[in-house]
């Protein structure tokens, strides 16, 4: 059978930002779905959002309420969401209470009532909330076979009448086995909510979906005044076409460092700038972004520890004008509010900004700040999500410079406190070193995946013009990366002697 012979399954929008992508493009039309989850997980809100997104007076949404949240209260609360269009009530979206039928009659009567309404309205969307109530009632009075027969007849009816159906229910995961509802359904959307330390983590999963491929795994979502917003694990990047690797080198804005990097950072690389507090990581990152703007590359700076205005003003103190490009929409400084973010939500915010201004350079300052801004429950996903974002963005030619703070050690030379070095193509290490009785700074290019680079250890200073590399490589010292070097042309442990507290010499009298 050729592709042209196959039936085309239309996809309906969910009205939930991000959810269509997770579903593989939208909801399969005429599918029979279950929205499952614990109380408070967002099932009813999701069902409402889908109903309002698709309902028209010609193909309305029928919303059957059964012994769950009282309909009046449901309307009271749901109308607070921005997707709730009052003009659609009783017209495109119709609420029908079936509580009494369920309470007083049997499954046949329930089916008869639903059939009557469906045949009368010819709905495009049907929601039964809560279907769990119907099943509970049925279990008390009907055999398992009768229940299965009821569900099959219901699915048959609603599919035949060309309705896309959602049965909302409070289920727990253990119920998936042997439950006829799950067997018959085409789609099963599971919503989770868990409190981790002081944060609430919401996730959803497409457990089952017939007819089209969805994005597997758990996806975070948030409920705001606009309803649900989902954040796909693929970050919306699944369809991006990878760019042919560029041979262009990007100047970092520090000529001597460009030389050390073999002419600049290869476009599309991920660069890690690691160093202790005060070594100039942020200044270097700002120079990188400012130089990009000077050369026509729009940029994004993601900061977690200071607000955009403060960041731009600090850049100004180094002679770097970030205010003008901000006004001209060539630069976006994102300050992501701390403490309750999910990784994917944060990534989406960054990606939206990248798309919006067509950014070529991205600075994340810093990874430690990024991780701290996340809700505790999401920190476990940090590296995985960061990997996905970096891989996808660099794949389309965005060059990323991330800063990371490392604890200064005088016995080790760590690149990062995280196991994230593998995420980066290039690593620049900044560190303090004791020379001539002063705490000075050195930098070295540790790694460049794309080619050769200088092995020199260079001294630098942070001046009013930013990071400036001083003189030639430091050839007179041994053990520079230990932080306590020895001057080769002087005797013994000159440096050590310089920095050891002088022993108090008792004067002989």
């Amino acid at each position: 059978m050729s592709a042209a012979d196959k039936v085309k399954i239309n996809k309906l929008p969910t009205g939930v930002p991000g959810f269509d992508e997770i579903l593989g493009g939208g909801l399969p039309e005429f599918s029979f779905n279950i929205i499952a989850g614990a109380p408070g997980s967002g099932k009813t809100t999701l069902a409402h959002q889908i109903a309002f997104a698709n309902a028209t007076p010609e193909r309305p949404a029928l919303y059957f309420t059964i012994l769950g949240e009282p309909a009046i209260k449901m309307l009271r609360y749901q109308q607070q969401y921005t997707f709730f269009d009052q003009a659609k009530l009783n017209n495109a979206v119709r609420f029908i209470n079936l509580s009494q039928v369920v309470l007083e009659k049997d499954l046949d009567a329930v089916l008869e009532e639903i059939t009557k309404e469906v045949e009368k309205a010819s709905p495009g969307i049907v929601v039964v909330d809560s279907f769990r109530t119907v099943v509970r009632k049925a279990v008390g009075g009907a055999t398992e076979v009768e229940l299965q027969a009821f569900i099959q007849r219901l699915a048959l009816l609603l599919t035949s009448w060309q309705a896309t159906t959602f049965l909302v229910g409070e289920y727990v995961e253990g119920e998936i086995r042997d439950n006829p509802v799950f067997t018959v359904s085409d789609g099963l959307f599971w919503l989770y909510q868990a409190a981790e330390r002081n944060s609430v983590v919401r996730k959803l999963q497409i457990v089952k979906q017939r007819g089209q491929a969805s994005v597997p795994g758990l996806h975070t979502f948030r409920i705001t005044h606009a309803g649900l917003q989902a954040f796909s694990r693929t970050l919306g990047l699944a369809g991006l076409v990878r760019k042919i690797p560029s041979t262009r080198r990007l100047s970092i804005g520090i000529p001597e460092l460009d030389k050390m990097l073999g002419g600049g950072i290869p476009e599309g690389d991920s660069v890690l700038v690691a160093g202790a507090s005060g070594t100039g990581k942020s200044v270097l990152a700002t120079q990188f972004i400012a130089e990009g703007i000077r050369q026509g590359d729009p940029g994004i700076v993601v900061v977690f520890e200071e607000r955009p205005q403060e960041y731009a003003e600090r850049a100004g103190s180094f002679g770097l004008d970030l205010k003008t490009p901000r006004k001209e929409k060539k630069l976006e400084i994102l300050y992501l509010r701390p403490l309750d973010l999910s990784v994917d939500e944060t990534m989406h915010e960054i990606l939206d900004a990248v798309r919006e201004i067509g950014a070529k350079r991205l600075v994340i300052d810093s990874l430690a700040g990024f991780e701290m801004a996340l809700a505790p429950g999401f920190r476990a996903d940090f590296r995985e999500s960061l990997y996905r974002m970096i891989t996808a963005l660099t794949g389309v030619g965005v060059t990323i410079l991330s800063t990371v703070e490392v604890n200064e050690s005088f016995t080790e030379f760590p690149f990062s406190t995280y196991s994230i070095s593998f995420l980066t193509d290039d690593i620049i290490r900044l560190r303090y070193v004791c020379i001539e009785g002063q705490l000075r700074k050195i930098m070295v290019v540790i790694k460049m995946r794309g080619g050769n680079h200088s092995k020199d250890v260079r001294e630098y200073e942070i001046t009013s013009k930013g990071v400036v590399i001083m003189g030639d490589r430091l050839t007179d010292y041994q053990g520079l990366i230990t932080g306590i070097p020895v001057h080769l042309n002087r005797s013994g442990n000159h440096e050590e002697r310089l920095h050891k507290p002088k022993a108090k010499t008792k004067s002989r009298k």
Partner: protein
Amino acid sequence: MSLSESRHLAQRLLTYEAVGETSEPAEYAAFRVCERLRQPLITLAGVAGFRSLLSRALTLARAEAPSLSAVQVAADGSLKGLDALASQTDKKQARDGGAILIAQLIGLLLTFIGEGLTLRLVQDVWPEAAFNGRVSEKEGKA
């Protein structure tokens, strides 16, 4: 919508029902308004939901119109005690009591689901009536 506005709306519903095509006397208009609201509200909230609302409205209304003590809400959400009300009070008292009851019912709907949805419900029940002024006005502003 203020209390006086909800009372005004109730009065308009009653007036509309009083002059409608019916052989029943005008003092029964409140019962007809309730009856016309009953089905759509039962569809929305169920019999139990509608009964609860109407019972609450009746309780609140009795505080202002003691003559309504003869009126009860039946199991199916309809009002009973109509004849008793008519026989115990004069026509004006009966009409006022009915108006207070409808105003309380409208007031409860306004409290729970807001002005927009309440007016829409009313508009759906009396599409031919001239309540569309207010609803249309709101839609025009949206």
